[in-house]
């Protein structure tokens, strides 16, 4: 009996082919690397600047104001003086880091699938013995892995810089709090899957990658809304809150996966994708 291997030769071949094409596509490289780089650079700058600005008690009260009430996942008892301001400045990055797993995969998925449609390469590809689940898995992984890895890479850089420029309290009780860890380790991959699923669905219905990318970018809006709610103090990003968002996103992922699997049938691709 033939042994079932998830990451088999077909899947790896498609992934290798995807990435070989993507790194030759300047638009994809720019639209995935630049936002990630800018976001990480911003986060690192805030960490560094917060270590050198005036953090007197008066300044803290004057500038931080209500924000101090919304620092996620950390008890007030740990936040004293300058650390409270640092925490309030860094806490929005919990949400901002969620933009990376949305932007990167949707861009890659859009160019990958719409690119195949534009090059008319789907028919010869589907005429090979590749299974449609192998193709779907490979396309999804090709888009998802860079999304997850760039989020984790960005967060690792952020943590490394924060280790140097912030106090142990902020580092251990805020950045390594369960809220942040769940958000980065659990929520980011779930957002990636959401972006991939949506990218596949949108790409099956549009003719050019830009349209797919623009439609997919609407995904960022709820995250921006969450950021505004967090900054304005409307929501408090606690661990249960992050876990409940993760649960909701996981449900959405499951629905999108079912739709994507239906769209990724040979017949549907050849006759239903335009």
């Amino acid at each position, binding site marked *: 009996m033939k042994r079932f291997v998830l990451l088999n*030769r*077909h899947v790896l*071949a*498609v992934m*290798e*082919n995807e990435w*070989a*094409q993507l790194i*030759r*596509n300047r638009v994809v490289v720019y639209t995935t690397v630049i936002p990630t780089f800018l976001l990480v650079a911003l986060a690192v700058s805030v960490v560094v600047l917060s270590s050198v600005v005036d953090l007197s008690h008066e300044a803290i009260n004057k500038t931080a104001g209500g924000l101090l009430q919304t620092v996620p996942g950390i008890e007030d008892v740990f936040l004293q003086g300058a650390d409270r301001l640092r925490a309030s400045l860094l806490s929005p990055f919990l949400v901002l880091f969620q933009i990376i797993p949305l932007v990167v995969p949707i861009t890659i998925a859009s160019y990958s699938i719409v690119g195949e449609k534009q*090059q*008319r*390469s*789907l*028919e*010869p*590809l*589907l*005429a*090979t*013995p*590749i299974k449609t689940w192998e193709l779907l898995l490979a396309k999804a992984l090709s888009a998802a892995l860079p999304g997850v890895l760039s989020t984790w890479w960005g967060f690792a850089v952020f943590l490394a810089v924060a280790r140097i420029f912030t106090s142990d309290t902020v580092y251990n009780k805020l950045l390594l709090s369960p809220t942040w860890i769940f958000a980065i380790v659990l929520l980011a991959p779930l957002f990636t899957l959401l972006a991939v699923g949506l990218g596949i669905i949108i790409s099956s219905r549009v003719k050019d990658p830009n349209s797919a990318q623009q439609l997919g970018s609407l995904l960022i809006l709820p995250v921006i809304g969450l950021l505004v709610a967090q900054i304005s103090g409307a929501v408090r990003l606690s661990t249960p809150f992050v876990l409940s968002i993760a649960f909701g996103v996981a449900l959405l992922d499951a629905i999108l996966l079912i739709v994507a699997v239906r769209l990724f049938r*040979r*017949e549907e691709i*050849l*006759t239903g994708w335009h």
Partner: protein
Amino acid sequence: MYSITAEGLGRKFGDRWAVRDLNLQVKSGEVFGLLGPNGAGKTTTMRMLASLIAPTVGSATVCGFDVVKQPDDVRHSLGILSEPAGLYENLSARRNLEYYAKLYDLKPSFAKSQIERYLRLFDLWDRREDAAGTFSRGMMQKLSLARSLLHEPPALILDEPTSALDPEGAKLVRDSIAALQDEGRTIILCTHNLTEAQLLCDRVAIIKRTALRVGTPRELQRSLYGRQVEIRVANALPEMGDSALFDAMLGRTMNDLALLISPIKGVGDVAVSGDHLLVSLLDPDEVTPRVVRTLVQHGADILKVAEVEHTLERAYLDLIARQDQADESLALQEVAPVGR
């Protein structure tokens, strides 16, 4: 032994039949032409045979494998050249082929030798590291043909293989098709180039949703026009009005000669065209000598006797025109008011 078969094959999209009641039997080692106008169902037929879409009704096999029940075996046995080429344009020719070699489960060493073999065969070896997008359409077509041959399939479906090729490229591809046939491969050739079909195909099917006719190009012509002999006469006159007057003055007219041979057993229609008689015969081998003898006995000097070969193009156009007329009649009947 048939390599590709279709029995009552049909495919419906919504309430419209793209292909209906299609029966084909393609012999092993045969080059079989699939001819038809745009929208005739050629692509749908190709896709059903390649296990890309499922038939609504009927069945088909490729190299003995059922296209519905054994799709993987069908795909391993079949190479497809699609139109357009469908290459990854920002990847090199070599990488394009390497990718497909992996998808066809070729062992790395075999894949490497196959890639070199076909890139050299199609004169692309020196451009192997160039992006496929920098190639001319002809080169892309050749690369696409190389891709379809990598896994050495016993059967091939080639869709417009010489379209967009310059004469040298087209000849190379035609020669390759002939060589592939010599290797014993079965080839289905979809083309609008009827001269090419006549040149390459052992048999053809003219399809418009269903197979209108199947046979060798000659069988097809004979089934449409019967067999005709063209006889050129040197000393007869063209029809000029009062034949009695001219008969008396100058001799027999072509029409007189036509009337002379019409009663001969085995002669069908006789048509006159200039100094030619076009004679339909049931069995030219038997009847032609009698016809020629009669003409000579009545003073005609025969310059040439030859069996008429109609082009495949003419047969194709006539068949499609007939089918169009039949479709129009059917449509008129369907919209005609029901009698009270």
